[in-house]
């Protein structure tokens, strides 16, 4: 005796959020039933395990049938097969495109290729996320990447319109696309302490300031590729470290600024003589680090190492000197500003554009 066929179809498609999440998480029907039983839904509704199994299978089938549509969210709104209220549609899409931070950290900056997809079982074992869920998330990244690759206009806006995602999620996807396109290295051990949101923030900064889109907003790929001209110009900043005078001048100005007696914060900083002294001692190293990063960005390979460089060349030295973020903020502010008053330094626009991003990225990345 067995149930051979068991279906339930509502005029309005019934979808249980909880089951949807279990499905998205890649649980098998049986595992999902177990989770639901533990969740106590049975006592709540006087149901039996059999009923729960039937319901779960049915929901799973519905989701599978919907999945095709979820790949093109715009279709969900004007398809005729399922009558789903708009708020439900939004929920379905949002959750389908949601991803696990621990998963995205594993693939962020990797090429969204078949090869990477093959390695997903390792990712799955490492993160504890089911392979099925990993695949969905990976395919989502790839799909979004493919679609926006060929579109003109602002990246975030394109993602939001094509995939009907809420603003925050669209921004996250923009970051993923941006990282995948530029192949930023994020997997190194030294970068492990950074969360996806840290990177997403940095990506936002880069997209808004360093891409073509920051200057011209009707170009193809404008938000995914860095502005080549700008990268070229960055080489000119080298003068800040190659010219001995300029370097010294810069150093003293930063020191003066930070030791200005009228600044309360500076007083506080000066109180910590230890930090202050270290800063003075390290100035050349730190400045050289930042400027070298800028100068090398013209090479695609060095772009990939952007984050690792930031950490190695700047964040780690500061951390070993026990700077606080306030110290860091103060230092970077003065470091940026004082370059403008250097007599022989001419590249103010490039410097601002560069340091604005660097500063906010470093501040964001400067934590444990």
């Amino acid at each position, binding site marked *: *005796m067995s149930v051979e066929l068991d279906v339930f*179809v509502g*005029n309005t498609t019934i979808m249980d959020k909880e089951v949807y999440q279990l499905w998205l998480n890649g649980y098998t029907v049986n595992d999902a039933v177990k989770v639901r039983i533990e969740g106590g839904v049975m006592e709540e509704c006087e149901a039996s395990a059999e009923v729960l199994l039937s319901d779960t299978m*049915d929901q799973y089938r*519905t989701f599978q049938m919907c999945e095709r549509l979820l790949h093109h969210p715009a279709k969900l709104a004007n398809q005729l097969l399922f009558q789903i209220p708009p708020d439900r549609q939004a929920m379905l899409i949002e959750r389908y495109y949601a991803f696990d931070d621990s998963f995205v950290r594993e693939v962020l900056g990797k090429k969204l290729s078949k090869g990477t997809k093959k390695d997903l079982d390792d990712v799955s074992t490492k993160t504890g996320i089911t392979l099925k869920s990993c695949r969905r998330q990976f395919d989502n990244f790839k799909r979004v990447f493919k679609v926006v690759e060929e579109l003109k206009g602002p990246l975030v806006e394109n993602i939001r319109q094509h995939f009907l995602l809420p603003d925050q999620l669209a921004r996250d996807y923009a970051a993923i696309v941006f990282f995948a396109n530029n192949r930023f290295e994020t997997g190194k051990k030294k970068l492990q302490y950074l969360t996806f949101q840290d990177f997403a923030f940095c990506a936002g900064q880069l997209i808004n300031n360093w891409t073509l889109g920051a200057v011209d907003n009707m170009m193809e790929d404008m938000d995914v590729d860095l502005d080549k001209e700008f990268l070229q110009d960055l080489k000119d900043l080298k003068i800040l470290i190659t010219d001995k005078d300029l370097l010294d001048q810069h150093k003293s100005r930063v020191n003066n600024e930070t030791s200005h007696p009228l600044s309360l914060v500076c007083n506080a900083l000066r109180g910590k003589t230890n930090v202050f002294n270290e800063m003075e001692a390290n100035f050349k190293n730190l400045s050289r680090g930042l400027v070298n990063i800028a100068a090398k960005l013209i090479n695609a390979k060095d772009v990939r190492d952007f984050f690792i460089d930031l950490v190695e060349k700047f964040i780690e030295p500061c951390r070993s000197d026990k700077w606080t973020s306030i110290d860091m903020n103060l230092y970077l502010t003065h470091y940026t500003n004082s370059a403008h008053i250097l007599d022989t330094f001419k590249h103010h626009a490039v410097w601002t554009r560069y340091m604005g991003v660097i500063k906010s990225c470093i501040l964001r990345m400067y934590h444990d």
Partner: protein
Amino acid sequence: MPGKLKAKIVAGRHLPVMDRASDLTDAFVEVKFGNTTFKTDVYPKSLNPQWNSEWFKFEVDDEDLQDEPLQITVLDHDTYSANDAIGKVYIDIDPLLCSEAATVISGWLPIYDTIHGIRGEINVLVKVDLFNDLNRFRQSSCGVKFFCTTSIPRCYRAVMVHGFVEELVVNEDPEYQWIDRIRTPRASNEARQRLIFLMSGELQRKIGLKVLEMGGNAVVGYLQCFDLEGESGLVVRAIGTACTLEKISTFPATATHPNNSSPSKDMKDSPQAAPSTLGCRSTHSSPVHSASSRLSQGFSVSVPTLLFAGMGSGGSAGKEAGPLKALLRQQTQSALEQREYPFFTLTAFPPGFLLHVGGVVSARSVKLLDRIHNPDEPETRDAWWEEIRQEIKSHAKALGCHAVVGYSESTSICEEVCILSASGTAAVLSSRFMQDGPLDTEHRLSRQPLCVFSTGSERVEGDMGSSASLGFEEVVSPGCGFCHIPYDELNIPFPAQLTYCYCCRRYKVPDVLFTTIDLPTEANVTGKGCLIQARLCRTKKKAQGEGNATAISSLLPFLEYELHTQLMNKLKLRGMNALFGLRIQISVGETMLLGLASATGVYLTALPSPGGIQIAGKTPSDITYEQHISTMQKKINDTIDKNKELYEINPPEVVEEIIGSPIPEPRQRSRLFRSHSESSDEVSELDLSHGKKDAFVLEIDDTDAVEDIHALLTDSPTPAGFYSCNTEIMPGIQNWTSAIQMFTSVRVFRLNANLTNQGLNKIFSDLCENLLKSLYFKLRSMVPCCLCHLNFTVAIPEDELIQVAVTAVAMSFDKEQPLENGKQSGEKTLIKAITENDEQLQFNLELNAETSSHNPLSSPKGLSEVGSHLSARASSLEKASPLPEGRSRSLRSNRSYSGSSVAVVKMTPLSFIPGAKIIKYLGIINMFFIRETSSLREEGGVSGFLHTFIAEVFAMVRAHVAALGGNAVVSYSMKECVFMENPNKNQAQCLINVSGDAVIFVRESELESTSVQTQSATTHTSNGGEGT
């Protein structure tokens, strides 16, 4: 050339990729009607083609318009090989032929392929220009309205109810033709779909002709069924109730408002408006046919090909139909007879129509199928049904009733054996809506509209004038009148216990009442109702031909008897005394028979309180045995108490006064009038009157009783917050919210071989119980909620498989609203409120129309356009709505959520939508689809396959309704769901037939805002109305 059909192909979207090389499609469209075909240009390399074709015009007879569907085929152009078909759309243009239904079909319709399912959508525009045909002998019946709804549709009033109409057409099933061996499954499926479309069209046309002949203009409770007889052919049959309907909003004011001011979309409505001011003019203008020529066709049964004349379910058939000549003689007069003892497919009636209810009458007959030799002369099948109807008629007569209401017919086929079933409720009707001769209609019609709904003094006058003979009915209170026995108490056809009515104390009522109709709205009910099901499974030996038919027909009476015992037990267990909407389905398989009886139990205040159930043991000496019995008894008593509490059954205590029942001792088992004389004997035989006076006795050591008790105790209660019924209204619940969820659920269960009857019963019962439990679980978010119109269909698709399909609607209600002061009174006020509301609307309308000529109100634009029709009213509402939408379908788009381009279409098996008012019926939806696959596993197995298919069917129904301009389907039902699988070959096939009424509804809250402004004026008018 009385009609011109015009079609325009606008665009396509979401087309499938047909060219793998380019990932695109070169699509074009063929538009076919009858033998004429037009083609669009090829729109190259696109999945979203924009054809924007010219108008393709077909000049055709209206007969063809009724029979044929418009067939749209989307193809992929291929230069070198044959063009590939993407899919098809069949459009039933019938709704466009009726002046009061839809005017245009326009919208996105799914492109359907029987192998691949839905493959994109196509946007089409279809219109019909009809020229008036004055030919008296025409074969078409354009303009007759069809409704699946089994009550008078909400925006109409019944001027006259003419009675029963039936027709059947037969044909060879394309699937069984020789050509099927050489053609593709797709071609065969399409041939079948098309044939059934044609046959339904023809059937509808023929029924329409009968209606015109009777002087009616509409068919209500239209029930069309298919019998897939396999080798022997395909039968499409339909029954319905012919009526003369009148739109409620027709008022003299319309005459003063010529329709030239109404917007173009009302052009088709408007001509109808003027004549209808004089009541039902259409009755007279309809052509009168030479009755003899048509009538002869249906009844000329000359060759008695009944292989099993005696096998028809029973003795009474033998008595009446035995001498077949007598039957034939009777049939020649049947036109008259049908009026005298009319059948009505209606289940709900205008107030005052239903006088008394006798009880359920049913008849079954087992037939051996034989190839239909001449499709044009479907005599055999006609004769079969005639025979059964005669039997029903005589049963009703025996119950002292002249009519059968809530009438339906069904079949169950297994190989060459076919069980024909018919059932209904014997009743006495008021002659108010039924006139024999069409001659005095004018006289009556002038008054009739006033009689129907109004409660003023005029009504009594009207009645007295026309039907003085029925004077006694006037004094009966409507809340209990229908319970009063129609039969002579000294000559009861079955043992019964009569008491004086608990409401009026004047007339006698039975102790239990079984009916197939809906609970009358005016009925006095105590507490809430609930779904009651009796389920039974009986094994039978595999047999062939006559032997098989004999075996089945000898099993049938037992099956029915046991189903009734079960129903009675379960009814008593719930402390209730009446069943409504009783539907007994018997399904036949090779090795078993399935019986499923569903009904809604209620406590009718007029009927006596049911006695308990008492268990009696055979050997009372044994102590352990007695203990067993007493625990069982206690369990039962507890359950009854619990149920009484659950369903709020606490009738006022009354002193019992049982009046001398003519038959002193025996208990009455069931009100169902049995067709088998043997089985009635059994009733009294088994009815050993042990125990207390009014307790229902079950003997424990009787194996059947053990089974019954088991079944009683295993019926698990519905979870908190849920109620269920299989009728239109749930007694005791009125405050519905607008949240409704229609659903279909199908389960197929595989049995082990060699099961005993008990084992089978248990499995079948569990299957139904578990299905219900699953439904409750699925719909838990809607609590408090009631599953209404729960319609179970069982089938035995093959050996050892049981299929159960359920279609129902879950409706939420507000618990908060106080229900004190007796539920029934609350309900009555609600009903009254609705009728009053109707009247108010009419008055408003009249007032609006009158005042607008000299005193334009706040929105003169809207008012100047108020025609006679509610549809016109709707358009004024549209205008008044703040939305900038000006198109005719703005109602629909109002409803659609912003951001979504697909209009929401509600579906419900009920005839109404809670919290909303239906303002227009757009026509009947009757669709038939076949889906087949040879990659079953890839499509998710049988469940995946059927799930997709049902979802597709829903989608197509919704799309067609939306294209008609509607936003809901009411009285929706899935009449056929035939599923066949062959997992070894990775194949499956499914046929689904659905029907319903496409409607436009508006939320009552939206209506209110417009009626407020004329509220004060309304009271004036109604006062004035009383004075005159």
